[in-house]
């Protein structure tokens, strides 16, 4: 399926704005946690993943930043060289990297969620 560049840029701007919002919520939630210094303890991290709304927030941060970041990288790399193999190569690379990062991060969230 071929996207127009304007459609890709709409996704880029939307994910950028949405990422700004969800990361802000994430930071606020972290700051409101009383034991901020202990937040990286194993039990606390697992507890966070057991909290379903918070897990959804983390998943959305992962998806939004992966899409926005890798599309940004694609745009930067597009300006380096102008030939079809390079353009197709970086498009395939960035799509594969986005999917891989989202799949690996989602797996981490699900595994942590299932841990007792």
């Amino acid at each position, binding site marked *: 399926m071929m996207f*127009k*560049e*304007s459609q890709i*840029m*709409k996704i880029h701007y939307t994910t950028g704005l949405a990422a700004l919002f969800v990361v802000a919520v994430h930071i606020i939630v972290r700051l409101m946690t009383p034991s901020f210094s202990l937040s990286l303890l194993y039990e606390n991290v697992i507890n966070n993943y057991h909290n379903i709304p918070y897990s959804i927030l983390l998943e959305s941060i992962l998806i939004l930043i992966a899409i926005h970041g890798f599309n940004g990288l694609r*745009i930067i790399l*597009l*300006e*380096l060289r*102008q030939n079809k193999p390079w*353009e197709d190569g970086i498009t395939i690379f960035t799509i594969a990297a986005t999917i891989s990062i989202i799949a690996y991060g989602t797996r981490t969230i699900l595994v942590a969620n299932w841990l007792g």
Partner: protein
Amino acid sequence: MNQIIKKIRMLEKKNNQKDMTKINNTKAETSRQMVVLNVYRANTHRNDLPRVEKFQIPVQRWMTVLDALLFAKSYLDSSIAIRYSCRMASCGSCGMKINGVPKLACYTKISELQGNTITCEPLSNFPHIRDLVTDFSQFFEHHKEMAPFIHNNNADIKDENKLSEFKQTPQDVDNYLQFSYCIKCGLCYSACPTVATDTKFPGPQALSQAYRYYADTRDDLSNRRLNAVDGKHGIWRCHFAGSCSKVCPKGVDPALGIQLLRGHIMGYSRNENKIAKLRDPT
């Protein structure tokens, strides 16, 4: 009508103020007797090594950089290659980097420049041919891609007795008027940082012309133009550095045209008149 007259008067007043400021600022500079003209010399076809040649030029009042170059060509070295034609900033032929900034040589007075040395180099982002002459083929190709003409299927051009007329309101004209002042001198293309890295990028001139015809109510080729600019190396690669608007000798704001066209592609920009008013002198 009254509004237009009022607008013209305001622009005149602003331009007069600008001219007076320029004259006051350059009063000390006009007294120079001689300047050193550094001219970039190289012939790409003969693989010449680039060098800078110095010429002593006697300065006269109101002398432009083009006058200085022509003096050097006439009396000091006839082999200097320069492209020029109208000498009044209408043809856009004599674009070059003057002291590092893309300018029209015929529109740059020596009295406006600081110091006693003037450096003339060929425009950046254009393939070099010889001395101050560059190749505009790629630039004009990008321009042609935007279909820079009014196309209308309803126009009756076959029957001369029944010529069609397309009426436009002054507001319709205001939407694109400033972009129609473009003389295709290539200064914006030379100043654009995106063109410097991405040769497939159409550049500010072509993109602003795409907007100029897109905004023209007489034209019906809008979709073709939007498709032409909506590619991997199209309008989205503009970084909005704004250097194109800064160097334009005709007061065109290509960066504004690019942003307005982007807005149309995104489907939210329908406020050209409001934006145009923001640029009005108050």
